């Protein structure tokens, strides 16, 4: 629906590192994506994959002094946010960039402050005619504060976000580890693993035919409301620490299809369908699989 709409935000080869006493944590290590007007992109990944750091980079709120954007561009309607000064950023934050982090499982839920940013953006953009919407949003956000976990409240909140988006053509980046949120909210998905996007595509295509083994395994490991499963396939092991990344594919140690090349060389991003890309050597090995 947003395919022909103008690109609002373009992130090009973003690298944001944390300089710690254990070494350089490559939290965001070459991330690129674009977001169009009225579009919702889901950025999915587990804790420590760099999704939150990506989000914080967009508003230039990386933890100081360890965090730094070391390379790349964040183009907001063509203007690079990476080179902006702090006073300049203050005009951007809350006015032009409004970010939602959806992670009801953690107590540090940034939805609140960022929710307030949405309201601010709404107030500025729609002085009249949308007052009732702003009131509704305030009401919903207040409730999210009390009961971030509650599904019936969550549903109200998500429905409201959709409504706000429909009226304002807001572009939304949804940072989450929950594929359910993606299924309900997002037009497109980018899956992050160990600092990089490993797969990106239209939501439906990605759910129907995930092409990166990590996406595939992660989706299979989530229990479902429908149908009975006697045994969930689980991904064994842990993601690699971001300060000791392997040379090859970062998922190699946990991958069911790993071969020698995967450990040696990071796979290139390959097109696997319309607007659907994945970074996996297996795609090259089986070009006819789609």
């Amino acid at each position: 629906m947003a395919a022909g709409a103008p690109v609002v935000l373009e992130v090009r080869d973003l690298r944001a590192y944390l300089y710690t006493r254990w070494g350089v944590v490559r939290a965001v290590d070459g991330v690129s994506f674009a977001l169009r007007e009225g579009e919702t992109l889901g950025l999915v990944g587990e804790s420590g994959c760099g999704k939150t750091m990506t989000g914080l980079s967009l508003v230039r709120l990386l933890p100081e002094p360890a965090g730094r954007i070391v390379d790349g561009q964040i183009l907001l309607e063509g203007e690079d946010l990476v080179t902006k000064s702090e006073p300049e950023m203050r005009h951007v934050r809350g006015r032009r960039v409004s970010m939602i982090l959806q992670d009801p499982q953690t107590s540090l839920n940034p939805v609140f402050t960022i929710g307030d940013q949405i309201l601010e953006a709404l107030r500025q953009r729609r002085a009249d005619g949308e007052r009732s919407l702003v009131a509704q949003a305030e009401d919903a956000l207040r409730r999210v504060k009390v009961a971030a976990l509650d599904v019936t409240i969550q549903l109200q909140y998500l429905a409201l976000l959709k409504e706000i988006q429909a009226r304002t053509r807001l572009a939304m980046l949804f940072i989450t580890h929950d594929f359910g949120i993606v299924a309900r909210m997002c037009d497109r998905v980018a899956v992050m693993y160990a600092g990089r996007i490993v797969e990106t595509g239209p939501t439906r295509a990605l759910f129907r035919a995930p092409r990166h083994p990590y996406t595939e395994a992660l989706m299979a490991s989530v229990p479902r409301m429908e149908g009975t499963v006697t045994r969930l396939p689980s991904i064994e092991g842990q993601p690699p620490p971001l300060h000791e990344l392997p040379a090859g594919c970062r998922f190699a140690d946990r991958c069911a299809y790993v071969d020698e090349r995967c450990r040696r060389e990071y796979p290139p991003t390959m097109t696997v369908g319309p607007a659907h890309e994945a970074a996996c050597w297996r795609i090259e090995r089986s070009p006819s699989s789609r």
Partner: protein
Amino acid sequence: MLEDRAIAVEPLIRVENLAKHFPVTRGVLIGRTTGHVKAVDGISFTIGRQETLGLVGESGCGKTTTSRLLLRLEQPTAGRVLLDGQDVHALRGPDLSRYHTRVQAVFQDPWSSLNPRLRVRETIAEALVVNRRVTRSGKLERVEEVLHQVGLPLSAGARYPHEFSGGQRQRIALASALAAKPELIVLDEPVSALDVSIRAQIMNLLKDLQARQPLSFLLVAHNLATVRYIAHRTAVMYLGRIVEHGDTESLYRRPLHPYTKALFAAALPADPDAPRDDMILSGEVPSPIDPPPGCHFHPRCPFAMEQCVRITPELKTVASGHMVSCHLY
């Protein structure tokens, strides 16, 4: 012989009309009770041997208070919790010590539930020290046994909690819960703080542990799909009461109570094409200090009738192993 059968049929845990009301006080020095939070308001259920009961509901529904009552961390206002027919809140002396080995708990946060100053093997052995006379070698043997059961290497015993990831810490918490060979483990949101790729590992581990030994679980969780995967039976709570209760299969296939239906409809879909029944409830859960009369759910219920306002519906059996408390049935 007959007696043996009677024992076999008796569930491990029997909860009868259990209630916990917390007084709400006003005034700084001399508190004046102005009302009661009816956190748990007369609930009954059983947990069989080697069975998992899932307790679901939104925050404030009373599921955590219920688990704390079972753990004896709270005294009930009314009703009883029976373990093998014995009232657990009346236990004293050796019976009480025995209770503390028979019932264990694993909580949500694997970061705060482990003592950071103790090596893993010391944490696990602590569970044995408190209530059992175990020799030093017996202790070590048991520590190694449970580490193995939860899938951790023996070398893990010599390390400290901070050296482990969230999933591994939850394994350690499970190991220390298992050490004293409990019959019931209360699992309060055991996977919700974990990463998605780690959750299935822990859920599968819980199932495996139960398959290998006579172990019952009370699983308190807000994630409905998690409960479906692990629990044999499920109870849905709303404002201190159980509104629906049944075999997990039956309850998930055919939820009956309007609240259960709304709760299930609000759960996030597994994929973008999942059939969706958007039953968006208006309003929020009312305060448990002054819950609505009659059926607690009536102010938000799309099917509310005149009698729902006045009469509290009883929990009725509507199908084999499926009970609902609603005037529609």
